[in-house]
Every structure is written in C-alpha cells, then in structure tokens.
C-alpha cells in the first residue's frame, strides 16, 4: 500500500514536470526553462505548506516525499520511484545547476552575469536546505516535529523563490526572472 502510494506520488511528479516543461525539447529557451522551474518551485511550496498541516503523520511524510522527488528529480538519491523508470525527470536542484552555463552565456555583461550567478547559487543553497528539512520530516516520528521540519522546508523554498518585499531579502529566483523580463509569464505579477 505504502509502495503503491509512493509510486503514485512519483507518477504525479512525472505529470508535474511534464506540465511544467510543456512537452519541450532540448531546444527550449532559457526563459521557458525558468518558467517551468518557477512552476515546479511553486508546486514545491504548495507541497511543503500542505505537508506542514497534514492531518496525519503518514500524510505529512507522503507530501514530504513528494517534495523530495520534486527537488531531486529522477536521479535523486532519495527519490522513491516505480521500476522500471519511465522517463527521466529533472529535479529543481539539478535544473538550477544545469542552467548555470546558460546564464553565463546569455548574460555577457559582468554587472548582469555576476548577480544572476549569485542568485542562482542562492537558489541552489536554499533548495538544498529545503531538501534537508524534507528528509528530516520523512524520518520524523512525531507529527509536531515533522511539521516544524516542513515549515522550515517551506521557508527555504520561499527564500529560493525570493518574493520581493520591502524588508531586506537575499537575491534568488525572482532576481533572475526579473533580469530575463519574464515575471509576467509565470502569472505572479499580482503578488509583487
């Protein structure tokens, strides 16, 4: 039963990624990949928030595992997947690393390239902290502690998303989206 649920979670992950990438091929533009990345990240935030308030510990662990799958992708060390693997799914952590050279290539000017590279590095750092928190939640035996872990994961995902605000914030994904002028494409202009 547990295995079946995990398998189902993985299949949903495939769906999310396929939605996010929109059937795109290797020729996807960096803008398309950023939009897909943002959608995945927002799905991760949704998972982290519902996990934190899950009615039972089993649900919490399940959503935490869904988040881990989303962060690590198909090749992840902690991904629970059905066998045989149907399709390679990139994880957020893998994707942000993969996008690094593209940022360098497109943003030739140093005053743009350096902040974007820093922002990408911050995104990766925040995502890895979110992964750590989610892994801790999956192993949790008490719902209150596991909830706290998922709130921690949510906070790191939110930091990676870098929602602009009046208070000081660390550059992350939003800075990149703004640099590429694609804030409107992710349908988040009403949040700014």
């Amino acid at each position, binding site marked *: 039963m547990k295995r079946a*649920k995990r398998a189902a979670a993985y299949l949903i992950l495939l*769906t999310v990624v396929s939605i996010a990438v929109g059937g795109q091929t290797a020729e996807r533009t960096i803008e398309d990949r950023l939009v897909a990345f943002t959608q995945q990240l*927002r*799905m991760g935030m949704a998972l982290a928030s519902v996990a934190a308030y*899950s009615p039972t510990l089993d649900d919490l662990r399940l959503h935490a595992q*869904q988040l881990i799958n989303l962060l690590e992708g198909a090749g992840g060390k902690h991904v629970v997947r059905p066998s045989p693997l149907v399709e390679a799914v990139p994880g957020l952590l893998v994707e942000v690393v993969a996008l690094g050279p593209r940022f360098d290539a497109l943003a030739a000017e140093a005053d743009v390239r350096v902040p974007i590279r820093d922002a990408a590095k911050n995104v990766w750092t925040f995502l890895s902290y979110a992964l750590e928190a989610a892994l801790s939640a999956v192993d949790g035996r008490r719902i209150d502690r596991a909830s706290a872990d998922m709130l921690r994961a949510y906070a790191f995902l939110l930091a990676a998303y870098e929602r602009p605000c009046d208070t000081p914030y660390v550059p992350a994904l939003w800075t990149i989206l703004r640099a590429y002028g694609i804030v409107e494409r992710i349908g988040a202009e*009403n949040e700014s």
Partner: protein
Amino acid sequence: MAITNRLKGGQRLVVVAATVVLVTALATILAIRGYHTLLEETFRERSLAYAQAFAASAGAWVDPLNDEMLTTAARFLLVGSASYVRIEYGGIRIVDEGGSGSIPEFDSPADPLAAGETRWTAGSAVLDVIVPLYLSGQAVGTVRIGIDTVSIVARGRATAMTAGGIALGVDLLVLALLFWSHRGSRRRRHGPSFGGDEASDGAETLVLGDLRIDGATKAVTLSGSPVDLTPKQYALLDFLARQADRVVSEREIVDAVWSESPYADSKDVKQYVYLLRKRLAAVDSRGRELIVTVPGFGYRLTSSPVDEGLTDG
C-alpha cells in the same frame, strides 16, 4: 472506612480488590475518552489547516487560471488521506478530483466561511472540510476536501487497546500485591514467630476462662498459676486460643506455627499438642481437657471452660 473495619480480612481484600479494579477501569475509560476527544479535535484542526494551506496555494493558480497545476496539486493530495478535492471559483467547479459523484452537498455552501467548516458525513468515514478560496483578500470560491478518517480511527483503537492492556496489567499487579500482603499478614497473625521485630505482633492479652495468655510478656497462666512453655508450645497455644471454639486442622496449625519450617508435619502437631496438654495438666489437672481432639478434623481450644467442665467441681 467504618464498613471495611467491620469486615474480616478476606472480605476486606475482596472489597479493596473490587475497588481497585473499578477505579482503574473508570480511570482508563475516562482517559481513553479524553484522548479520543483530543485526537478528534486535533484531527479536525489539522484537517482544516490542511485545506486552508491547499486553498492558499491554489489561489496562485486561479488567476490567471492554470487548470493543469490545480488538478496536479489536487492529485498530490489524493495520494494521501484525501478522498476528494473540489475547487469552485466564481460559482464554477474548476477542479473535481476523486470521489464518486456521491459526495453530499453542504446545506449552505454559500455561507460566508471565515475560517472554514468541518463536518462528519453521515455513514461515511470521511471528514468533509470546506474552506474559502481567497484572491487578493476576497473570498472568490471554495475548496472542499474529504479526508479519510480510517487511519485516525485505527490509531484511536490501537491506543485504547494499549491503555486497556496497561490497566489490566496494573490491576493484576495491584491484586497480586494485595493478595501477597494479605497472606503475609495472615501468617503473621496466625503464626507468631519469636524474632525481636515481630514481638509486638499479637501483643495483646488473651483471656479464655482461667487461661490467660499475655502476648507482651509471653507468660501463660492457668487458674492463676504460671504455665512453663517453650516458644513453640507457646506459639501453638496462642494460635489455638486465637481460633478458640473453632476446629483447626493439623495443616492449618503446621502452616501457622511451623510456617518457617518446610519439614514440619502432623506428627509435630500431635507431639506438641501432647506436650502442651501435659504442661497445662501439670498446673491444673483439668487443663488437659482444654484442647479437644476432634477426630478426623483437628483440634479445638474451648473458650467456655465452665461448660466443658474445666472449672467445674
């Protein structure tokens, strides 16, 4: 207290044991009920918060509408305890995942839902949760999630079983201790030993006709004359005197007077009864008749020496 004081040892034990069992059972039932109430409340609260968290996330995909992301997010929930997820926006159902079309409607779905509402669907193991869907601070629709309660019911049942088992264990332990304590006190009462720490046990003076046994000084007199007894003879006389007019078997006497000796038997009883009668008769010739042999049953010390003819004539 007054009632238990009037009861004999065995009866008192039964009353105390019954009280312990009753109190434990009552405390366990109350604790389980309290735990179940807490579990249900916590489950309700968390389910409501769960739906609110989902609604907050869903709000980001409602305007502009992103059906695919909404549906996918809903399906993430269906993998867990959620049995159905419905999202209504502007009076239109934009997500309807899970369930079999037989989901009962809320009586007043258009109620202003400040924080949401939960209700148990009659005849179903699903908690129905409905929360408002906000967009820019305005309630623009509702999110409804049915959450399966099977796991939480199973958990409540398992906890009740565990608590019942613990209560039973405690009952057995207390009853064993009570029984052991009662048996020990009976032994002390019936079979005085001669150690210093038990010298105070049975220290009162017993008077049965002309026979007087002073528990404090261990002195025995018959018709005012001292009877010289060994500690074992004294113990035997003391035991018989405390059971005056009652026939006690040789086994009872062995258990009480020779409780520390695994080798004592009826022969010892016979021998000591003989010696005791002899010592009593040495003081008063009618002392021999004080201890009556009841063939086939045991011995009886008479408390009415007049009737038995002890002081007669």
